[in-house]
């Protein structure tokens, strides 16, 4: 029985279609991550300035994206934006936008955390040799906090990749949606087809995320050694 079910994956173009679906998820994640990374670093740096208004606004932005589940964000952006603001975007663009904004929000907190964990002595001594604000960020704060930020950022990247699984809810033809089509079209021929299709998707996600998790752990360990050495 288990023998026959696995063949659902090799039937027709099923495998290619599943991988095609994965490609769409990966593409959305990749663009969102790049955009979110840049935006997040800028916002994170801005959040360390002593401007109460700016801080409040950026804090609100963070809290919004932190508190609202991603499924809900996707629906909000997919339905509300076009109906109420007359902006029209395809499902993939909406998804990319949502993920980018979400990534930027979480990233801004990582960046801020990294920057404020740089010892205040470093700021003092940067000021003492006459560096201005921008030079302080560029030469002292960012370079020193980057090492601290990398593991958390990798974890965030892997979260974004995993969250692309929600794309099926807004009609993006992602890997899971394709999987459902396949299960439905072949359901009667492979009674346990869904086991194999979902299993295969499970493995696909694992293959994408596991190297990231290894990398993050490696960096964390290295950081521990550096901190002690």
């Amino acid at each position, binding site marked *: 029985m288990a023998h026959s079910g696995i063949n659902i994956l090799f039937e027709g173009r099923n495998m290619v279609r599943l991988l095609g679906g994965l490609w769409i998820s990966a593409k959305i994640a990749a663009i969102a991550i790049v955009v979110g990374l840049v935006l997040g670093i800028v916002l994170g740096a801005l959040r360390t300035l002593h401007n109460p208004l700016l801080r409040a606004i950026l804090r609100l932005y963070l809290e919004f994206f*932190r508190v609202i589940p991603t499924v809900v964000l996707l629906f909000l952006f997919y339905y*509300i934006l076009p109906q109420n603001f007359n902006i029209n975007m395809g499902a993939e663009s909406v998804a990319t936008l949502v993920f980018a904004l979400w990534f930027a929000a979480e990233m801004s907190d990582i960046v801020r955390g990294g920057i404020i964990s740089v010892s205040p002595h470093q700021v003092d001594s940067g000021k003492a040799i006459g560096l201005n604000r921008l030079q302080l960020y560029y030469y002292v704060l960012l370079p020193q906090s980057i090492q601290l930020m990398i593991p958390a950022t990798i974890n965030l990247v892997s979260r974004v990749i995993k969250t692309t699984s929600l794309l099926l809810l807004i009609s993006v033809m992602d890997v899971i949606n394709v999987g459902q089509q396949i299960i439905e079209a072949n359901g009667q021929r492979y009674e346990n087809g869904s086991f194999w299709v979902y299993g295969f998707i499970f493995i696909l*996600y694992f293959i994408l*995320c596991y190297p990231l998790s290894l990398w993050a752990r490696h960096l964390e360990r290295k950081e521990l050694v550096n901190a002690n050495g």
Partner: protein
Amino acid sequence: MDWSIVQQGIPTYEKAFLLTLKLSFEGILGAIIVGLIVSFVRYFKVPGLQRILGAYVELSRNTPLLIQLFFIYYAFPEIGFKISAQASGIVGLIFLGGSYMAASFDGGLNGVPKIQVESGRAIGLTDWQLARYVVLPQGLSLSIPAIAANVIFLIKETSIFTVIAIPELTNTALDQIGMLYDTNEALFSLVVGYAIILIPLSILLTWLERRTRRGTFGN
């Protein structure tokens, strides 16, 4: 937006809200227990178990909850293992949350300074006494902010339960949209529902983080 529609929906959303709370609570409690077990096994380097739990952690952290739920709910029955939707949701949340909680506990336990362990040894404490009086109390309080962050994360993840037909907040809202087309009203009620749970938690988290950073937990 039509406020009377929002108002009419209140009883339904209240039920969904309570269900979200109940499932979150049970799942998170389970995740904390699993997390503690995994973390202890790693801290005390229990042979054998360490490896098995290590594999669990990797599977749990590197796959989406949605697929985990599909597996538990749709795929497992095909190989003869069936539990109810709510049970599937809770099991999924525990499966996912256990590894996240374990990481938080690890952080806390490893954050206890080595000198604390040594000075416990120096006054003759046994390994178990060391754990009981020194490592655990300090390690657990150090992990509190990370645990709180996970709680927020896991509560949000319950929104994915919608795919296995559990009538929690998200499912209820999507249903209202699909059947009655009150998109604005449904999304509004939905956001309010999550905000009531998560905003206080998020504020608590910020406070806890600040407290730890200031080192009031420390020496």
